[in-house]
């Protein structure tokens, strides 16, 4: 069985092996920290940093750092949200196809927005957003639910209890809903980039089926408000 890897804090830590092998484990020793690829964060002078950032910097100077994954790069075009979304769109490891679909989607968004821009009258030209990255981020933000529901069994019956969601969970749900929406509710002949760009633009303007799904979830949570005290965490 491959054991957790050994580099770093000496011979003593190498023998760290939990008694029962957990299912979710990584080849890195737990003391390894995440890498930071953005060039700007290394050029900030010392005075601008807050207390937490200073402590974090000191910690980074002492601890070993994990290797940067292939999707992370310091170029202006690499965006962590876009890479996460591409990974979720990917099927059976075909990253090439997923990445090309993503770039075609962004191009389609840009084209549609430019068309609108050129047709619009002078005073409205400033309100039209043409940057596809900004549209993507805003659309995702609009799709994120605030509360979620979870099944809690009490006294034999299962209730849908409203619970707060973590940031990661919100982002994941927004991306999953978008992708599921684009895969199912479309005509057989429409391609993924076209449908995705359509959905993203609708979500950017707070319309569309994904936003409706989010509102439905919020209404269910509001309806089940009475069971909120079942949550014990």
């Amino acid at each position, binding site marked *: 069985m491959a054991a957790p890897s050994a580099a770093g804090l000496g011979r*003593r830590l190498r023998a760290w092996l939990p008694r029962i092998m957990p299912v979710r484990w990584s080849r890195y020793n737990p003391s390894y920290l995440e890498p930071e690829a953005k060039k700007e964060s290394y050029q900030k002078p010392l005075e601008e940093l807050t207390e937490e950032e200073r402590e974090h910097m000191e910690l980074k100077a002492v601890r070993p750092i994990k290797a940067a994954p*292939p999707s992370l790069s310091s170029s202006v075009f690499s965006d962590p949200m876009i890479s996460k979304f591409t990974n979720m769109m990917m099927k059976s490891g075909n990253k090439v196809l997923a990445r090309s679909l993503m770039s075609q989607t962004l191009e389609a968004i840009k084209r549609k927005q430019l068309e609108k821009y050129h047709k619009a009258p002078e005073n409205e030209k400033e309100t039209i957003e043409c940057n596809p990255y900004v549209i993507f981020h805003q659309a995702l933000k609009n799709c994120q639910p605030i509360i979620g529901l979870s099944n809690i069994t009490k006294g034999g019956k299962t209730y849908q209890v409203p619970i707060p969601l973590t940031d990661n969970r919100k982002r994941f749900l927004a991306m999953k809903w978008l992708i599921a929406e684009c895969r199912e509710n479309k005509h057989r002949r429409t391609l993924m980039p076209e449908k995705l760009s359509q959905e993203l633009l609708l979500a950017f303007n707070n319309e569309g089926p994904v936003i409706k799904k989010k509102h439905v979830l919020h209404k269910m949570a509001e309806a089940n408000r009475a069971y909120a005290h079942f949550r014990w965490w």
Partner: protein
Amino acid sequence: TLRLICTTTPVQRKNVGASGPEKYTEAFIKKQIEEFNLGKRHLANMMGEDPETFTQEDIDRAIAYLFPSGLFDKQARPVMKHPTEIFPEQRKIQWGEDGRPFNFLFYTGKQSYYSLMHETYEKLLSVQKHQDQLIAQDLPLQKEKRNLAGSRWLTKIELEEMLLEKVSDDDYSRFIKLLQKLVALPCADIEENYIQKFSKEVPVQLQKVVIEPLQHDERGVAFSTGEGKRKTARATAVVYDNGTGKITVNGVDILHYFPVLQDREQLLFPFQFLGRIGKHDMVCTVSGGGRSAQAGAIRLASAKALRSFVTEKEVEFMRQAGLLTVDPRVKERKKPGQEGPRRKFTWKKR
């Protein structure tokens, strides 16, 4: 008449397993130490060296010479070390002649662990009392923050060695939480001596790797080499100075060798991070692995080569960006009884 022929009745049979690991008496250990010292001098005489200045390394070399062993496991080979290293430190008997234990926590089973917890909690209470006294006298509390980044707590194994008894994971985490609580209080400086027993220094900037100086080829151009690996791919890169930004892999240009944009982005990552895109030329050779593994291997090799061209601060930035660490992730092995590393066989009800 019946003749009893070699039968062991259950009463006479000794249960070897129930008595636990062998207990070494003090006299036994002393004898072992004397024998060791005598044997050391004999060995020095045999090897023709001075018995007074015969160090442990000399002993190891002599034993390896006199008893050559082809066994793979280093711990199975003949070894001659000081008895304190061979016989594990054991606790002396915990009770007196009348059978009464010395420590009042003996019947808890983990007496040293619980006594340690009690001691640490007493220190915590004394720190809190001191704090209350300072507040009552309206004096300011000392807010000197202990630098947590430079030290680490004892590991579980080190704690076990210190206490000479087994410590479970839960107990260990409870102890560490208590220590952290103690350190978090503002007036914890009083108990600095006590806390230092449980913390160890971590050297800043782990692995001070030696950065090789630049070499110069016939035309006078400075260059440096680096090696990298990822999964099964192995790559070597030679980075030349005063270049135009051309990159050649196995004799082919990168545009032809890596048709995928992601791999080319990975190759350029170290150069883009340092801001030296058009300034260096690179020639690399790579073998093994797949397309993404080869790109990762070349990235690591070029980052290692670029260390010689760049200041120490920038090397530290590269390390924090994850460019200089070897990626330890490899393909997980298939397990018996399952179809793949994680996928199980289809479950059939009957």
